[in-house]
Structures are given as structure tokens and as C-alpha cells.
């Protein structure tokens, strides 16, 4: 069994008010390390056995069609063992 991970992030030029809210909450708690914060989504897709190249290509297609909105988001697909 393996997990195919899809990470979706807003494109850098798209305003991320959620990330900004997190960034402004951190120093209030004494965490002063963050210059900025961007918030995204992570999907974990479980598949049987080792994922094939065809399977990964399918996941990329799904990431492009449903999991992300290419107008405002970028995505990254990788396999986690």
C-alpha cells in the first residue's frame, strides 16, 4: 500500500487572507520566526501496491480537474511510502 499525496497551494500572486491571519496570530503567541505564511490543502490518496506511472498520471489529471482550480492554484503530486 502506498499513499499518493497531492498538495494544493494558492498561486503566489493570489491573496491568501487565511495565511495572513495565521501570520498575524503567531507573534501574539510569542512565535516571531515567520516572515509570511501561506496556507494550502493536502490530499492523501491510498492505492493498492506500488503506484504505477499510469496511476500517477491519472492522479495528476484529477488534481488538475477537481482537486485544484488551475485559475488560482498550483499543485504537486508525490508518492509517500
Amino acid at each position, binding site marked *: 500500500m502506498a499513499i499518493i499525496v497531492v498538495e494544493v497551494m494558492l498561486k503566489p500572486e493570489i*491573496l491568501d487572507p487565511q495565511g495572513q491571519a495565521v501570520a498575524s496570530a503567531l507573534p501574539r503567541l510569542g512565535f516571531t520566526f515567520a516572515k509570511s505564511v501561506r496556507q494550502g490543502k493536502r490530499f492523501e490518496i491510498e492505492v493498492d501496491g506500488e503506484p504505477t506511472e499510469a496511476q500517477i498520471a491519472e492522479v495528476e489529471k484529477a488534481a488538475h480537474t*477537481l482537486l485544484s482550480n488551475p485559475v488560482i492554484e498550483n499543485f504537486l503530486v508525490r508518492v509517500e511510502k
Partner: protein
Amino acid sequence: MRIGVVTFPGSLDDRSALRAIELGGGTPVPLFHGSNDLKEVQAVILPGGFSYGDYLRCGAISRFSPIMESIILAAEHGFPVLGICNGFQILCESHLLPGALTRNADLHFICADQKVSVENTNTPWTNNYKKGQEIVIPIKNGEGSFQCSDETLKELEDEGRVVLRYVGKNPNGSRNAIAGISNKRGNVVGVMPHPEQAIEDLTGPSEDGLNFFTSILKEMVGR
């Protein structure tokens, strides 16, 4: 004149839209997301609400429903479609309209009577307004910030495809204070404010929204 309103799982304003159609003088026809049957309607409205709980992204799952297959196909051939709020989000997710609606800049869910100006009256949904007319209709959303690339923004402005624009303070960080847009052809219009909630004094802040529902009748009679 038969005008359809699609009910998705989680739609809220479908009944208000049906009622607005009736008040405007049309024949309201309820449509269901799970069927691809448009029931011979001559135009369709995608109502506001929280279809599929806004899971994943607003409108992202509804966009793949059977009724949307029929609507996308028809819209590409000039069929009039109006998306209100969640309906606008669905139209963007369907790529019938450019750009996307994202979280309001201040992260608040905003529920307010909003002044907007009608900038484009050459659409089947706004031809009964005067260009530049200022109207007051409610906004009620958490993800109403219109975002798009610089290139798309320029195209929308240059081609006069901004249908509604917020007047006064920009409530949600939308680019160029855009509250509504149309596609190139003009038959597909998406607006964040709710014209169907401003059709009579008893239940709304004004009657300013009613013209959306009389415009579409005028469009059809004029054909």
C-alpha cells in the same frame, strides 16, 4: 417564458429565485442537479447557497453534476445563464466565466445591503437597467473576492464585461471592486450580490433586483 432554477444539494436561494422569476412575469421551472433535463426552459439561473457544503472549493463539486453538462453545452451556444453568489462560483469553476471567487479579504462572512453600479446593460440579464445606474441589493457570502490574472482583468475591463461593480468601500478585496461579470458573448452572467433578494419592499432593502428578471423576458420577446 420558462426560466429554470437549479437546485443543488445545499442550495439556499432556489425558492427565492423561482419567486423572483414569477414576480418578474416569467414561468419558474424547478430543475434538479441530478438530471441533465433542462425541461425546455429558455434560460437558467444557478442560485445562491452552499452546494455540497462548499467542500473542496465553492462550486467545485456542483460543477460536475449532470445538469451542468447540459448547461455548459447550451451556454456555449448562446443560452442565457445567470449565476448568483454560489451560482457565480459554479460558473467560474465550470470555466464558463474567467477568474475565481476566493475568501473575503477580512475573512468575515459579509451580510449587508450593498450599493453596486450596473456597468454593462448589454446582457440578457441587465438590459432593463440604465448604464451606470446605482442599485442596492444584498450581499451574503464568505468567498466573494473576485480574483483573476492581470491579463484577464484587462480583457474584462477593455471589453466592457464588468456587469456590476461595488460602489464605495470594496467589501471583500475583489479586483477592481468587481461584483459581477459576463462571458465574451454576454449570455453568461455571474454576480455575487443577490438581485432575487431585492424584489419587493416587504422582504428586501429595495426592488432594485427585479430588473434582472424582467430583462430576461425583454431579451426573449425581442428575439
